[in-house]
């Protein structure tokens, strides 16, 4: 991931220089509803009794969450914007994360006119509570942009979100947390949809 950001900037810089003048800096706020509908996990660990437990649970539980994100970015071309998003994102029951997401937004009819918006992005997420290991997320969606005034617009967005996580594993016998040395694999993934509104400046 550390290599990804310079790589993206390297790709974007030539397109920036192709434009006359400096690219416009954009700012924005986004908030919305998140419905998490699927959680999958892969756990492989040795329990206190000394035997190995391998689990791959799939849970189709529904949890309502929300998100509040701020962003800052650049208008790369007349139709493409790249922005860094951060804030607070609920991903599961009592599970909140701080994302650092790089997102591309493409407006076929132009960034500063009414019309379709397609977006996609990915980045890191940091859980707010243990286990606080840095994880990843991917995000794709579409929406409709309404231009209010020069440079001020509102987006109505619908998107799908994929977030990874690492959980505290409970020993089934002692009900205590399994120490990291006994864990071979510990992954969890959440899938959710987002309905959000954004204001861009």
């Amino acid at each position, binding site marked *: 991931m550390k290599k990804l950001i310079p790589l993206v900037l390297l790709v974007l810089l030539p397109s920036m220089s192709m434009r006359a003048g400096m690219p416009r800096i954009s700012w924005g706020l986004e908030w919305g509803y998140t419905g998490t509908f699927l959680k999958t996990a892969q756990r492989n660990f040795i329990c206190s009794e000394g035997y190995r437990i391998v689990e791959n649970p799939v849970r189709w539980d529904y949890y309502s969450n929300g998100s509040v994100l701020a962003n800052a970015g650049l208008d790369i071309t007349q139709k493409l914007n790249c922005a860094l998003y951060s804030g607070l994102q609920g991903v599961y029951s009592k599970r909140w994360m701080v994302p650092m997401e790089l997102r591309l937004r493409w407006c076929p009819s132009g960034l500063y006119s009414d019309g379709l918006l397609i977006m996609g992005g990915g980045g890191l997420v940091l859980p707010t509570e243990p286990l606080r290991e840095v994880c990843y997320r991917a995000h794709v969606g579409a929406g409709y942009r309404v231009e209010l*005034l020069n440079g001020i617009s509102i987006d109505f967005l619908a998107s799908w979100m994929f977030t990874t996580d690492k959980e505290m594993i409970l020993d089934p016998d002692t009900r205590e947390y399994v120490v990291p040395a006994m864990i071979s694999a510990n992954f969890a993934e959440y899938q959710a949809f987002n309905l959000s509104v954004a204001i861009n400046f």
Partner: protein
Amino acid sequence: MQSVLNKLLLIWLLAAFFIPAGAQEAGFFNSPKGFGAQYCFAENDGVFHTATAYLDIYGIPTSRCSSPGYRFNFSRQYVFHKMENAGVGYTFYAGPGVSTGVVRDHDKGRGFDLTSLISENPGFMFALSGNVGCRFDFGRKLSLDLSFLADAGIHVRVNEKEKSYTATSLSVYNNGFIQMFYPQLTILYKL
């Protein structure tokens, strides 16, 4: 999920019932308090009315409860200043109103216990409200409305300590004051 959908349906039915024939604007209500719909009656002699129905999300962002409350407000707004700058029209207003609904109130200092009784004490709320705000008109079909609202009222709910006896408890609706500085942003569509 089903209860959320039921409440959404109820709110939309409630909102539809209150749609006036001469509604000037209708929109999407956004706030840290919750999400819903707002109808704005046509302005007449510097006075207009707003009807807002929304899902109260108190306790949901912190995962303390999973189902929202629902809330309704009707306000009479007095326009006290209008101005225009750089193509944007600003309308400043303030006014009284009434709020009601079935919501959870702020639980009083139960500390960091995330499984506190908040999830068990939704109750009926009735309050007199005071509203102040500003409408931003960009000369387009969409306009924005930023407002703040305080509720002074009561909250009636099943007593947490004696719930098996279905005793009720009555208290001041604390969230009416605590949430008065929560911004309310409505994206309005001109009908």
